[in-house]
């Protein structure tokens, strides 16, 4: 059997490949790793098993500087967003095999619609899972406390926007005292999801120390926001016991975290502004409440005053009425007393007269019993000098009466 030299073999492979894969072709894969050297991009392109835990294919990709510049002119910043680790891409590549450097895929074009379409699909899937787990609306259903003064800040100390955020809060024109506590997390790169999940867990241990949690960072590449679309991060965010605010600096579509958060704003300073305005609203409500209380108190006082005046009038009228009643009573007594006294005297007179009559009749009876008689002529008592012959006399004894005629 013929033995080839390594060069002969590789030279043969090159010719076979060139013959069969002479034209550029489109291929999909994920950028596992990417580096820049002397203006050229070198990357590991991989394909994972459907379970996502095992590599089933891997190749080296190269984007030469000249090609990069041409694509950059066509696509702008989007190109840089696509050239990111962990991103699935659709590339137009020319398969190249070099006798010494082996197989490489020279990148001629890149299809952004594939990547963004895929990201969109993944996002929809994550949203659907969050909804079916009852988590999608969970954080949004929390209400902000009346005053926001203690803020848990999830960002990197070096992140663009963090210092702006702090300065904005500090320089609020109303002099509100607002304290911030930094939960240091990566806001770009591969660590974002794990960092934020861990930090949210730390926060939940001491959530009573804070009023709200905010996730902020300055602007960044669009694909760099992919971490904020991840399921685990959004599960943790949805379960955050505090209302979550986001200001993760993006111009285009909101991330899923923005949808899950209680409030999503464009930038860190917008978040700071919201917090200040929220507190201002509370202060204004306090002032209004104070005014209402004052007004109500005045109304109550006026009412009480009016009632007192009314009561005083009623009392006065009552007193006057009572005086009048008493006067009438005295009038009545004054009128009736003399009549009563007169009647009393008349009664006494009558009594006396009766007694007199009784005395008279009693004295006549006594005389008769002793043997005296009473002689009457025509019903009247007579004396001897008055009697004439022929008079008819009635003589009354104690035990009876006799009639007699005077002889002489």
């Amino acid at each position, binding site marked *: 059997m013929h033995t080839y030299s390594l060069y002969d073999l590789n030279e043969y492979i090159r010719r076979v490949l060139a013959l069969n894969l002479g034209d550029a072709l489109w291929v999909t894969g994920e950028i596992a790793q990417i580096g820049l050297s002397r203006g050229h991009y070198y990357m590991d392109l991989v394909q994972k098993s459907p379970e996502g835990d095992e590599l089933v294919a891997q190749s080296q990709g190269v984007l030469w500087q000249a090609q990069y510049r041409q694509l950059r002119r066509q696509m702008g910043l989007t190109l840089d967003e696509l050239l990111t680790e962990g991103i699935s891409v659709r590339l137009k590549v020319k398969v190249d095999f070099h006798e010494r450097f082996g197989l490489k895929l020279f990148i001629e074009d890149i299809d952004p619609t594939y990547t963004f379409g895929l990201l969109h699909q993944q996002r929809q899937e994550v949203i659907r899972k969050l909804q079916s787990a009852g988590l999608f609306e969970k954080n949004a259903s929390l209400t902000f406390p009346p005053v926001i003064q203690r803020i848990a800040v999830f960002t990197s100390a070096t992140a663009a926007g963090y210092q702006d955020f702090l300065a904005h809060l500090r320089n609020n024109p109303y002099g509100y005292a607002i304290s911030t506590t930094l939960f240091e997390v990566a806001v770009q790169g591969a660590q974002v999801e794990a960092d934020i999940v861990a930090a949210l867990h730390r926060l939940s241990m001491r959530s009573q120390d804070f009023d709200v949690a905010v996730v902020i960072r300055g602007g960044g590449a669009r694909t760099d926001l992919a971490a904020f679309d991840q399921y685990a991060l959004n599960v943790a965010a949805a379960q955050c016991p505090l209302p979550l605010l986001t200001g993760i600096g993006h111009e285009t579509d909101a991330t899923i975290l923005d949808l899950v958060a209680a409030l999503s704003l464009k930038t860190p300073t917008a978040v700071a502004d919201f917090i200040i305005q929220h507190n201002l609203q509370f202060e204004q409500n306090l002032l209004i409440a104070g005014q209402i209380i004052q007004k109500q108190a005045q109304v109550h006082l006026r009412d009480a005053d009016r009632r007192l005046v009314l009561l005083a009038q009623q009392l006065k009228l009552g007193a006057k009425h009572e005086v009048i009643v008493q006067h009438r009573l005295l009038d009545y007594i004054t009128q*009736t*007393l003399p009549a009563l006294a007169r009647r009393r005297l008349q*009664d006494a007179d009558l009594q006396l007269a009766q007694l007199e009559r009784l005395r008279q009749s009693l004295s006549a009876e006594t005389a008769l019993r002793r043997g005296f008689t009473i002689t009457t002529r025509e019903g009247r008592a007579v004396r001897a000098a008055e009697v004439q012959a022929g008079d008819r006399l009635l003589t009354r004894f104690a035990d009876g009466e006799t009639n007699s005629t005077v002889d002489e």
Partner: protein
Amino acid sequence: MKAPSYESAMQELQRIVDDMQEGAVPIDELALKAAKAAELIAFCRNKLRAIESEIQQIDAQENEG
């Protein structure tokens, strides 16, 4: 001796009236009772007039205020 209250004066007056109506006043005391009643009536009238003028003074004070 303390001046009697309007109520006690009125009670005494009422008792005299009641006694007279029932004929329970001895004749010897009739003139005495009548005089006492007149005295009590005068006392009550004076009291009422004093109270009236006090009420009027309160009215005047309120109207000033």
